[in-house]
């Protein structure tokens, strides 16, 4: 029902184009996460959905109705702001009731909705406090409660967790996930720059970069089959290693000679004409395994190691112009520092990019 469709949506401030060619089809019940580096326009896009920014061109429709000119309140959306944007002069109860009062709902209806939301968010004891008497997490819950109370078709979250500390962030993240679980029919759009949030919450992720959509897909899609170097590096932590090289063998499996010296085989199929093509070989740190074999992806001296308990991160000394290579080994590996290590990876987990785009998607 509550489908949200963006068609050729673009945004420009005068001459400056901020967003262009945004085409997106959001189904009811999805939790879509917009991610991207700061300045990529993800918040702007969200605000365009909310109706707080005008749409320069293209159409935005919710439930099959073009809403480009519809004021925010009538789009059936609710929004949770990064700074919570609680009304400082109203109690928690009044904050949550505000929208309903504006809509002239009956007092009983308002009370029921507010109390219901408060119960879901465990805010009942705080209903008569002013926002300044609440902690950051509580404020955030009030902001969410304010959205729930309105029972919107679409929830919009604008980096809702970025003002919270790490522990609270995780806890609130799970709360949001549960909230979604309890409201399977509601559509949510969630903006964040934190890819962990994106991966854990999203039913689909929209990666925005350079004023356009870089890739849309389920979290695992993006993880396993990034369309381009940007998505490949943006999703996953630490970012995917990219090593320049040249295709030396084509076919259903491709062999690439790396400029740093290694030779690597991947499951990516290539055409004959690709021989000699300059490519970037992508391998996620967690896919790298130490090897004694000749055929290796990379050989280098371990600079710094970070032992995180369940895994150990190895940062190899840089070689020439190439980017630093990082490997993530399961378990604890003490004493690898200053050792020279040879690494290989499962050919199925190796990506090939040419001119920034994955060869898989040609």
């Amino acid at each position, binding site marked *: 029902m509550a489908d949200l469709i963006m068609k050729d949506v673009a945004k420009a401030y005068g001459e400056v184009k901020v967003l262009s060619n945004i085409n997106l089809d959001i189904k009811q019940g999805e939790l879509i996460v917009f991610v991207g580096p700061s300045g990529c326009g993800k918040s702007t896009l969200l605000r365009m959905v909310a*109706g707080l920014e005008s749409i320069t061109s293209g159409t935005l429709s919710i439930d099959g109705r073009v809403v480009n000119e519809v*004021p925010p309140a009538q789009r059936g959306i609710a929004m949770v702001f990064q700074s919570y*944007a*609680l009304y400082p002069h109203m109690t928690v109860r009044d904050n949550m009731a505000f*929208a309903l009062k504006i809509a002239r709902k009956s007092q009983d209806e308002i009370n029921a909705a507010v109390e219901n939301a408060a119960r879901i968010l465990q805010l009942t004891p705080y209903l008569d406090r002013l926002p300044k008497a609440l902690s950051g997490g509580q404020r955030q819950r009030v902001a969410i409660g*304010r959205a729930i109370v309105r029972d919107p078709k679409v929830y919009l979250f604008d980096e809702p967790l970025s003002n919270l500390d790490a522990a609270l962030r995780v806890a609130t993240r799970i709360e949001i996930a549960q909230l979604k679980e309890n409201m399977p029919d509601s559509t949510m759009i969630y903006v964040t720059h934190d890819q962990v949030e994106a991966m854990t919450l999203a039913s689909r992720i929209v990666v925005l970069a350079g004023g356009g959509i870089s890739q849309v897909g389920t979290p695992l899609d993006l993880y396993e089959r990034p369309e381009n170097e940007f998505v490949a590096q943006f999703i996953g932590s630490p970012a995917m290693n990219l090593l320049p090289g040249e295709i030396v063998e084509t076919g259903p499996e491709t062999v690439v000679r790396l400029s740093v010296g290694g030779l690597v085989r991947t499951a990516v199929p290539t055409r004959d004409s690709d021989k000699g093509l300059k490519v970037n070989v992508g391998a996620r740190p967690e896919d790298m395994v130490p090897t004694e074999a000749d055929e290796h992806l990379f050989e280098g001296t371990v600079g710094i190691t970070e032992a995180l308990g369940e895994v150990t991160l190895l940062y190899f000394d840089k070689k020439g112009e190439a980017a630093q290579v990082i490997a993530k080994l399961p378990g604890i590996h003490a004493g690898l520092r200053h050792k020279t290590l040879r690494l290989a990876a499962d050919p199925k987990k190796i990506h090939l990019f040419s001119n920034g785009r994955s060869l898989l998607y040609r």
Partner: protein
Amino acid sequence: MLGLGGRKSPLVWVMHLSVLLLVVLWTLPTAGLFITSLRTADQISVSGWWTALSSAERNAITRTPDGSAETQVGDRYVIAGNVLKNGGEVVAFGRSSLKPTQFKPGEVADLGDGITLSVKADGSYELSGPTKLEGGQRIFYTARTPPAFTLGNYAHVLSANGMLRAFMNSLTVAVPATVIPILIAAYAAFALAWMPFPGRSLLIAIIVGLLVVPLQMSLIPILTLYNDIGKATAVDAHGVIGTLMHYSGLGQMSDDGTQIGLNPKSYLGVWLAHTGFGLPLAIFLLRNYMVGLPREIIESARVDGATDFQIFTRIVLPLSFPALASFAIFQFLWTWNDLLVATVFLSHQQDSLVMTGKLKDLLGSHGGDWEILAASAFISISVPLLVFFALQKYLVRGLLAGSVK
């Protein structure tokens, strides 16, 4: 805050001392006025107000009554009395303006023809002579008087005829002339800060420019306009509208009593004039404040379905309370202390005189009575001060409530 990190006592002392210095500098002139208002005109003109607390030595002249007041004591005719009316002590006296301190108290001065004058330290004097006295003799004396204060100046000002009326008139002028411009300015400031519309920045520019229009420039054009309106609205004085206008005080009867038009000199006119003159600054200050409100709060309200009108009344207005309160104080002070606008746009009849006008009146046609000026200045600032102290509490509270960001 500045003293964070231990070792703060010297800095704190410097801070307290400098505030004290500022406060003293800022209150000293007013304190002087206050003390002056408690002194008599003569005291004011001979000694500084800071000497009011010490006993003063001062030269004075008095005159004995004429011969009809004399009594006969033995073979001498005597006129007696006391030069001091309010206590004190005589330290010297004289009989001539050339030597006003010639004699010590108790000494006897020879005035010739057997007439003698003596003044005692307690001020009692005795003029005596062998024949009937003419009296009217001047006595020069130097008296040391203890500090004395009087409420006479205040009594004089407050008891002036029509002062209560003037007070009411001032309130009638000042309250709406404060509320109306704030209301109008708040709406305009909100639109200029948060509602996009074509020509907005031009309008802001014009308003900043209008800040500087001297109101003296507006007096004649506006009053002319008012008079024209009064003539244009003239209706039959005994009709329904005419009667209404008459009793509401809005109307002004024509000379022959048959027509009545809107009175060019009515409270409405003054309010609107004050509104017009106060608006640029009100809009300027309020817009500046409102622009600083967190944008997400307003957007949030918009998403919550509030119309612009609701956003304004339910969100922006309560959050702008500190700015509204401060401007209210300023505007009230201006309208309360204003004389020019009130005299031009209200008739100068006694019954519509405002406080400032009344106080000016008290000074007499030649002015210069400092004791009256001082007392009346204090009476006239009492109301604004009261307003300030009353609103200050809200001002601070409002500031704290508004600082959630």
